[in-house]
């Protein structure tokens, strides 16, 4: 899922300076799973913000809500009743939710309270790691289920580079070398021959993130 981290509170307080009453909207999906924007985190942040503003004698009124998601019109609409009298929305959802709210409530400032950091896996409770970069053309079949776009610092398709040492990446000793993992997995699967085939250069500019903002359509669903 999408992983995000709350922005530093000083930054958020900076955004909220002009306002006296805000809606603080969490999201019940990805940011709940990584403990940065779910119902609990909304409550904690609301308390912290109120306390900080109390000290400066500029109290901040906060209305809390955590819809199941923010990235769809039906869920964004849940804030509708609360908008009256509120001056801004602070959203703890990923950038998608923030933008959906901004589009839905065009007359209100919608401010981001988290930084999306990556799409990743919960490795253990409290630790999340990047696994996917939405490259548009998944090659996990060729690489034994380990993605070199997301997990190789140089996004090599024909790695490893000369800096792979004892299974670790040259840029950080704690980082596993993706190509060592790919090698190990393919060996376990009896598919090492896949590594002798050259994977051609990626079509970054036409199939991936460099082609501009992407769109996906299912005409059959647009009834």
């Amino acid at each position, binding site marked *: 899922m999408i992983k995000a981290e709350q922005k530093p509170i000083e930054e958020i307080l900076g955004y909220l300076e002009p306002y006296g009453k805000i809606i603080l909207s969490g999201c019940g999906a990805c940011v709940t799973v990584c403990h940065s924007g779910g119902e609990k985190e909304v409550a904690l942040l609301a308390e912290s913000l109120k306390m900080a503003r109390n000290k400066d004698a500029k109290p901040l009124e906060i209305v809390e809500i955590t819809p199941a998601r923010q990235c769809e019109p039906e869920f964004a609409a849940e804030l509708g009743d609360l908008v009256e009298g509120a001056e801004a929305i602070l959203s703890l959802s990923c950038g998608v939710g923030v933008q959906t709210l901004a589009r839905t409530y065009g007359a209100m400032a919608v401010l981001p309270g988290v930084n999306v950091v990556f799409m990743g896996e919960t490795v253990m409770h409290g630790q999340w790691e990047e696994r996917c970069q939405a490259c548009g053309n998944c090659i996990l079949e060729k690489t034994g289920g380990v993605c070199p776009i997301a997990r190789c*610092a140089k996004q090599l398709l*024909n790695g490893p*580079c*000369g800096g*792979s040492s004892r299974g670790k990446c*040259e840029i950080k000793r704690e980082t596993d070398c993706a190509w*060592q993992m790919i090698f190990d997995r393919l060996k376990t699967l009896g598919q090492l021959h896949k590594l002798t085939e*050259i994977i*051609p*250069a990626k079509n970054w500019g036409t199939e991936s993130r460099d082609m501009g903002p992407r769109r996906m359509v299912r005409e059959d669903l647009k009834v």
Partner: protein
Amino acid sequence: MKAGSNLEKVLTAGHFALTSELGPPKGNDVAIIQKKVDFLRGNVDAVNVTDNQTAIVRMASMAACSFVRQMGMEPVMQMVCRDRNRIAMQSDIMGATALGIQNLVCLTGDHHTFGNQVHAKNVHDLDSVTLIDMVRTMRDNQTLMGGEEKIDGEIKMFIGGAANPFADPFEFRALRLAKKATAGVDFIQTQCIYDMDRFREWMKMVRDLGVHEKVYILAGVTPLKSAGMARYMAKNVAGIIIPDKLIDRMAKAEKGVDEGIKICVEQIQELREMEGVHGIHIMAIEWEHMVGRIAETAGLLPRPAVE
């Protein structure tokens, strides 16, 4: 002849080749290049000109190569995948060949976080394997990557690459070299060798795959200056292995520099005897004045003159 460079001619004629390396200035002071070329001229067949090595910004390899040529030496241009996309790369190759540069080593490149512009966008449009393939396409197909767009003129490049017998996974390293051979590499230079046993093992794997008959292999050496340098490299540089007995030798030596040169010469002599090793690549960055002494002591001078 694929390009007709001096390096290619030396290797094709069956001589044991010798190359070295120089780093361009961190600015545009051409006198720095002149100084290094003056040390190296006549002592090697060609000199690699690095491309923003360790992601530290230096004068572009192509520009520095052009000066090296003017100063009377044959350059080997280097191009990393870290900083340029395929448009810039093909454009640079057209420019380089127009400037008379005939050797190009294709590399992945050290990660940008090692350098002095750590906030840069990481390019890596291609990797070293697909870059080699691209240059081969330009040369042998006379088209851009993709095979469709015709190039005006001929792109004559002797294509090089790198290999690291000391990186992991070890059992894959020879196969990766084979992959570069399939992609069209003409010669490779290895990472600097200290662990002879491991290098021997790697060479055997390379020979078993028949790659030594498709690709010229130049063994890399770097003279040690002190035990401290040896320890530092062994600990901090990923992909370099230095056996303890070498570190001990450096530590016990009266003069580190002299011992380091001695070890380097011994290594060269040992490597010369190995089947499939076609030459030596001396990497003595910022120590270029030692290259002549090493070459002479190792009996590699004078360099062969080829027509």
